[in-house]
């Protein structure tokens, strides 16, 4: 009923390409996150879906209706979608109940029905007692709840959320995340959620699209994004992956054997013998060991205390090798100490081939 489909959508501002040939199919009822560093085009993409911008190329469909095509966009006020703004965008001259009721008034929902829906929306976010308050009398978390209630009272089939937690304290974010998950479940609406915080995206979304320089690098469920990144950018961005160059030696059962700085290690992924490829490693793929074969020799370059674990930064001895990171829970070796690193797992990035 309310899928969102983008086909080869591009949007430029002057010479900057904000969104570049993006194709996405968000299915009905999905919780979809747009993740990326600032300036990657995720907010522009959301504004294209909302109708604040018209695409330069491509088309945008809500369910089966085309709402955006080159140079034209169906006005936002005619799209019947909900949106939660980063600034909350609560109207300062209206109280909480009036804020929530506004869209229903505009749509000429009869008074009795309107009051019922406002009360229900406020009950859902636990703000019945605040109905007569003005926005400036509320805390940040309460304002966020009002914004959400205002959006839900419209009973939209598509809800857009633009960095809704960016202005909240860390401890409030977790609580609000759970609220978002609950609302998504209870409303059954399609959610498109823009964030630069990967933990937020991973925790909430059914699928996450990682954006970079206006393009979608990869759209996949969170686990696949982390374990099987499609590009080097995704590998580095998600879970602080390390990317190192390897030469493929050959396949051994389910595993691929590659050469990393002169050592043979077994990893996941596809590749044929002789290829130069890139390998994605996460810190939990690595461990200190006393073995001497199939291991990487190096020394401790730096220690960063992180509470439960200490982050070891290791400089391998091989020439031109980049640093590795390991989270280490026991008492760490001293800076400068010689160590041996075992590679337990890794993923060959499918993107392009090295020269």
């Amino acid at each position, binding site marked *: 009923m309310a899928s969102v489909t983008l086909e080869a959508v591009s949007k430029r501002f002057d010479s900057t390409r904000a969104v570049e040939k993006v194709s996405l199919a968000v299915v009905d009822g999905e919780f979809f996150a747009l993740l990326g560093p*600032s300036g990657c085009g995720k907010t*522009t993409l959301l504004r294209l879906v909302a109708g604040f911008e018209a695409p330069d190329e491509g088309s945008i469909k809500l369910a089966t209706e085309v709402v955006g095509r080159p*140079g034209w966009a169906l006005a936002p006020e005619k799209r*019947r979608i909900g*949106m939660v703004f980063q*600034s909350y965008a609560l*109207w300062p001259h209206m109280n909480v109940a009036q804020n929530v009721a506004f869209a229903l008034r505009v749509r000429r929902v009869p008074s009795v029905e309107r009051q019922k829906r406002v009360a229900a929306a406020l009950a859902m976010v636990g703000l019945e007692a605040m109905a007569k308050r003005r926005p400036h009398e509320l805390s940040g978390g309460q304002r966020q709840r009002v914004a959400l209630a205002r959006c839900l009272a419209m009973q939209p089939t598509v809800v857009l959320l633009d*960095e809704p937690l960016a202005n909240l304290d860390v401890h409030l974010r977790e609580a609000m995340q759970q609220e978002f998950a609950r609302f998504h479940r209870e409303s059954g609406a399609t959610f498109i959620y823009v964030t630069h915080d990967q933990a937020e995206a991973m925790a909430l979304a059914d699928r996450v699209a990682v954006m970079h320089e206006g393009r979608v690098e990869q759209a996949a469920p969170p686990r696949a994004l982390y374990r099987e990144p499609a590009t080097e950018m995704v590998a580095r961005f998600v879970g602080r992956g390390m990317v190192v160059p390897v030469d493929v030696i050959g396949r051994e059962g389910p595993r691929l054997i590659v050469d990393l700085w002169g050592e043979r290690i077994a990893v996941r992924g596809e590749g044929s013998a002789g290829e130069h490829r890139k390998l994605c490693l996460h810190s939990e793929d690595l461990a200190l060991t006393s073995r001497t074969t199939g291991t990487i020799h190096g020394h401790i370059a730096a220690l960063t205390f992180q509470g439960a674990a200490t982050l070891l930064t290791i400089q391998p001895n091989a020439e031109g090798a980049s640093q590795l990171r390991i989270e280490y829970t026991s008492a760490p070796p001293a800076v400068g100490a010689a160590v041996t690193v075992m590679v337990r797992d890794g993923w060959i990035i499918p993107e392009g081939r090295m020269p």
Partner: protein
Amino acid sequence: MVDAHPADAPASSRRRWASSGGETFLVAAIAIYVVVFAVWPLLRLFFEALLPGRDGEILGLLIGEWRSAATRTALVNTLEASALASLLSLVIGIAVAFAITLTDVRGKAVLTFIAMLPLLVPSQITALAWIEFTGAFSPILAPLGLAPKPGMTNPLYSKWGIVLVMGIEHSTLVFLAVRAGLRSVPRDLVEAARLGGAHPLRVIWSVVTPLALPAILAGAALAFVTSIGNFGIPALLGIPGRYSMLTTLIYQRLQGFGPRVLGEVAALSLILAALAAVGLLLRALLVRRGRFATEGSSAHLEPFGLGRGRPVTAALLWILLVVIAVLPLLALLAASLSPALGVPLRLDTATLDNYRFALLEQDATIRAFRNSFVLALITAIVSAAVAVPLAYLVTLRKNPFARALDVVADTPYAVPGTVLAIAVILVFLPPLPILQLSLYGTLGIILVAYLGRFLALALRPTMAGMDLVNKSLDEAAQIAGASVLTRLWAVILPVVAPSAAAGALLIFMTAFNELTVSALLWSTGRETLGVVVFTLQYEGNSPAAAAVATASIVVTLALAGLASVLGRRLPEGVVPWRA
């Protein structure tokens, strides 16, 4: 870690506007307003002035005026008096702004208000007040033995009189510009200089002044342009002193010969407008440089401590401000209370007869109060009603057509009022196309000119208020399904209403005392307050003129006080004289 909203980029003009019919309608409606009240009259004037002369010579009107000795004299006088007056404005404005902004003198709010008085008091009343102040029967100078002897011509009826009064009247413009310039100097630059070992005077000379210089010069340029277009002061001082300036020359021509010399006065107006345009261009360039110099400013400047020098500085500042802004008004008040010209004012001779005559008995004055009130009220309300949607389309919707309209809407206020008045006569003297009736000789023609002229005055505070409205408030209402008109009414108007109201108040105060435009457009029974003050003085009834002037100042100052109270809850920049 927030995405910069790319929609704020200027390039969002890429957007196609056909998607919102309501917005197109709104832009079209405002465009019609701006064209009827601003573009059409001014273009008409432009082409009228370029017409051939009576003998068919190309550009004959303009060449004829250019060759005329009277024009030459008026042109030279205008340039000379305006240049000298802006020099005086510059000296006073800088001294007052530096003393109030950069030092720790006490009572800054009161001092700022007094420094603002010359701007709040309309120029014909300032001129009147100075005539009383320096006249033979001056209640202040005569007891001190400083007044000219009775029978001598008032020394103000001369070039230097015009320079003095105009220089003081426009010193407030320099004061405001300099103060804004000084305030925008980043504090850390000053602190860095002091840590580097520089004495405060050295800091002011080497750091603060160079950074504020573009703003200072822009203020002087504005004073110059305003002097060129001033009518009230040359009319009250220059006409009796036989010192002709362009604005008074146009007035006297039209008064003497009527509409048949419209072509000639249009040519004169074009010369006047060209002078103003050069000044405004200069100012725009200076303002742009100033913005560049202090980009990315930090906190406001902290004033320097004067130490033992404080009482002396404060005393000098008070004396200066009281002499230029307060004493003339007191002289005016005294004149309004004196029984007859030349009778010394004492407690036992003071009388309210002049007020009774002017406010209760003379029909023309009563009419004028009513006319000015109605004109100012309608102008204020209509201008605010146009300014809100226009500011909304420009600021929040970034509509390219609205942006162009915004620039055009400033023109009727930027050109001298005399020019606009002639332009309005040219268009609205002939009968209107369908109605077959002429606005000339009715209040309608004054209203038309006011509607064009004062829109800019409502736009600025409304824009300042609109700038602070987060764009997402509008977008959220859009998402909620509200059309442009619904959003304007239910979301935008309530949020910017105080700023728009401040603009309306500003217009009311200005229009209520307006003279320059109405002096050329009034007719018997259709007088404005400014015209009545001018006429009473012209006819030699200066006590009555003083009474009407005092009464209208009381109204103006009461409104200014109201705006100040209202202004405390408004964003910075909405009420111009707020300390």
